[in-house]
């Protein structure tokens, strides 16, 4: 069995977000990069399947050399090999073309695991675009997955107000999130893993030619919030008045 883990490298949550070059670029100075939080649940699930079935686990990232330290963390957690497609992920369509090309030109992957959305550009669309470009099955917002016999797979997806259980078959692409595994099951690299990761292959491939369908012209920061209105705990009438007459929410 072959599993492909699609990894995004994103700024860590506590990062201060700033823009430079006249607000046309994200300011990377001082930013710590991490494995995209939604992806982490999929990675741990992939490792659980690998340990149970002996599956081969490959991690793929579309990025510049700057993403390699984060890719190595995935190798340290237990992936067998890594592939970096050497390109700036210019937009979701461009990124999907790169990934689909890799998938279509290598030995079949049974399970392709992405995170639901990356927390930098919040596109949440590369996985579905790749499904369209490769013709593989696809389910998004996946909060549970059980492999069954004969390539069948039972998937739970999050729906508004609950969850839906779907039976489908491999090969399958999923956009995963918390629930695929529990928070406490998340794997982190240990010393042994980090040592072993150094010997694992990290292949760098050139990008294939592709256009973009969108581009960011400029950034701005959201308007700063006004000062908070504090209401005395003994004067809740004033709070109700503010919520009713000012905010107009009750």
């Amino acid at each position, binding site marked *: 069995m072959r599993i492909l883990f699609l990894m995004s490298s994103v700024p860590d949550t506590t990062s201060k977000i700033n823009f430079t070059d006249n607000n046309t670029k994200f300011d990377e100075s001082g930013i710590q990069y991490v494995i995209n939080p939604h992806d982490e649940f999929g990675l741990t699930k992939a490792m659980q399947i690998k340990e149970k079935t002996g599956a081969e686990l490959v991690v793929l990232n579309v990025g510049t050399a700057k993403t390699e330290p984060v890719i190595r963390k995935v190798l340290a957690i237990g992936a067998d090999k890594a592939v970096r497609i050497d390109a700036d992920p210019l937009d979701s369509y461009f990124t999907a073309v790169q990934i689909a090309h890799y998938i279509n030109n290598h030995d079949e992957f049974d399970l392709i695991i992405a995170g639901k959305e990356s927390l930098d550009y919040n596109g949440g669309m590369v996985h579905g675009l790749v499904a369209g470009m490769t013709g593989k099955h696809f389910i998004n917002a996946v909060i549970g997955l059980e492999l069954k016999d004969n390539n069948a797979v039972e998937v739970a997806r999050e729906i508004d107000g609950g969850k839906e259980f779907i039976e489908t078959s491999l090969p399958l692409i999923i956009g995963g999130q918390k629930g695929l595994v529990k928070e406490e099951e998340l794997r982190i690299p240990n010393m042994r893993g980090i040592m072993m990761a150094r010997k694992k292959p990290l292949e760098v491939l050139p990008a294939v030619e592709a*256009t973009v369908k969108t581009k960011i012209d400029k950034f701005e920061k959201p308007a700063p919030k006004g000062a908070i209105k504090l209401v005395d705990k003994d004067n809740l009438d004033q709070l109700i008045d503010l919520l009713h007459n000012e905010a107009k929410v009750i």
Partner: protein
Amino acid sequence: MSILIYAEQQNGKVAKSAKELASYAKAYADKTGQDVVAVGAGLEDADSLFQYGVSKVLNVNDETLKTFNAFAHAQMVAQAADQQGSGLILISDSNDAVYMGSILADKLEAGYVSHVIGLPEDGGNFTVKRKVFSNKGIAYTEVLSDKKLLRLAKNSFGIIENPVSGSVEDFKPEIDKSVYETYKITKVDKATGKVSLSDADIIVSAGRGLKGPENWGMIEELAEVLGAATACSKPVADIGWRPHTEHVGQTGKQVAPNLYIAIGISGAIQHLAGVNGSKNMLVINNDPEAPFFKAADYGVVGDAFEVVPNLIEKLKAFKNQ
């Protein structure tokens, strides 16, 4: 030329999100001399969309299609777009629409933008503002393709009444229904009766400051008085005080209600990432240094066990006026 919106339904009734899509579409349609057309399946009150500027509703009455399937509905919307010659298609950010969206984008070969928060900008090219970096930034994103697919951030544009006369058509697209077999729904677990987090206008949320699961009665009572949904912070979901479905935050749900009330929640960045789309935030916390007070619109410093019951009484009196 028409702008096409994908109208969802809940139990046959047009979803609130469809009214917001219609409002956005109508505002842009008026600027550009276009019509607004809606497409959906099983919309029993399809004509309610006329109130929001939709002049034609393509309503699919086929029983199979009334059940959401991302691939079937992507085919449905693509065919409607083709039939209407629509260059701009709008979807909501419900779980279903997000699932369908990228499949639809691929079918239409459309440039696709998510978390859109404003109408297309005035000027030569087609550019929209969208939220990036988990709401810590805004990107002016230009769509370069002919067909354009926008996913609107919930509760960012608003619902605006702009009545027009309209018609409802019995739409019969050619759908490959084998997708319902490929993705066979075996079970649906849905909390009935309770207000869902994604639809709620008001959310009452609580965290570790409540000290134990046995203390949530007042949270549920406050929610009931306000007709609100209940939510919680990650730590209390992780230790099992509240169900994971209530967890709001970076790896939990993203919510965008008109009012988010946070009780006994300090306001860690990961939590704020899930709630900073809210129109208004009220924080009730004993600790005046709690980071949440820097992010909120309204605040009460005090013991939740005093403030919340007090607030419930006063709200009941207010509602009885």
